[in-house]
């Protein structure tokens, strides 16, 4: 989707952190991207490399940790693994499953100099 804006968001978080943690160069960036967040990991890598050119994160390695999509089936009440928002419950086959996890898009950690 809007991975260019998301990559800019990542850079904003890094630059804010650079001010409060006094670093001038970023070597590695760890992101946590949920399976149900709607962000495309490959597009994210491409946009990140483009966005960080000429900044303190130029050339930084991007490590993406995917978190599993989770939902609660409103029919059988179980918490189940889902990869897409509209998938039926894998246990009882019913709809809808309310997403409860794997929605996040976070900058987790940075390796800096």
């Amino acid at each position, binding site marked *: *989707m*809007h991975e260019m*804006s*998301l990559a*800019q*968001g*990542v*850079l*904003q*978080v*890094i*630059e*804010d*952190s*650079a*001010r409060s*943690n006094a*670093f*001038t*160069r970023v*070597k590695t960036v760890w*992101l946590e991207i949920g399976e149900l967040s*709607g962000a495309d990991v490959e597009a994210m890598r491409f946009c990140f490399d483009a*966005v960080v050119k*000429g*900044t*303190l994160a*130029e050339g930084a390695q991007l490590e993406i940790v995917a978190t599993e999509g989770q939902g609660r089936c*409103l029919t059988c009440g179980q918490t189940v693994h889902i990869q*897409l*928002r*509209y998938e039926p419950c894998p246990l009882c086959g019913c*709809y*809808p499953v*309310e*997403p409860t996890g794997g929605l*996040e*898009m*976070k*900058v*987790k*950690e*940075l*390796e*800096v*100099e």
Partner: protein
Amino acid sequence: MCTTCGCGQGETKIDGEEHAHAYVHAHEHGSLLQGRPHAHTSRMVQVEQDILAKNNQYASANRSRFAEHGIFALNLVSSPGSGKTSLLTRTIERFKDKARIAVIEGDQQTSLDADRIRATGVSAVQINTGKGCHLDAHMVGHAMEKLALADDSLLLIENVGNLVCPAAFDLGEAHKVAILSVTEGEDKPLKYPDMFAAAEVMLLNKVDLLPYLSFNVPLCIEYARRVNPYIRVILTSAVSGEGMDEWREWIAAGMEQAAEQKANEVDTLKRRVAALEAELKNAWSEGRG
């Protein structure tokens, strides 16, 4: 491009003008490393921050402003050509007191939509996102500066026609309203689930065309509820007027609630001020005694 505040990308324009910054940029542009001696000892920094943190900060500032003034703000999202602008002009016509409505229009180019809205007699601001595919909370904050928003009023924000990107960007609105027209195919909620998951209401629009189409209304509603079990569905037509009363009533109820919440907050503050004044008075008289 300034990547620190997401601003000055040379693309976003509000009513055809690039907006001025109300604050001074504190950061340097360009590489922070150029020509500086630096040691190569790396360390880890825990961040744990949402990627959209900046947008969310602007959104909550907008939201506080809406709450303070009792403004009911709606973020209208859809694909291009769903009939959003026609629906908006018809909606505005149904409110007798037009002074209490303002519109923010988002499009990549042109001010055609804002012109159509202004023709109905309400104030409108056009945001042109340039290459951007969605409105963000920062742009909306700047657009609000151009609109004299009345207390207890309605703000309709027409997002860029796109069923994907606007889903992720909170503008500070009370609700997202997804508009889907019956000429589009009933499986849209499954194809673009994020948008329908984020919406409070789905307006199934252009229903006057149903006799000429093979669109399956119950199936479309079922798909929408698979993605969002709580979504409210209203069948509308800007041409025949079907569903417009229900839609207007839903808006009116939201406006009333926003105004009530503001009034309650003002009352709470007034009571707090009165209590503090009484305390101060007591302290004075005790001090004298």
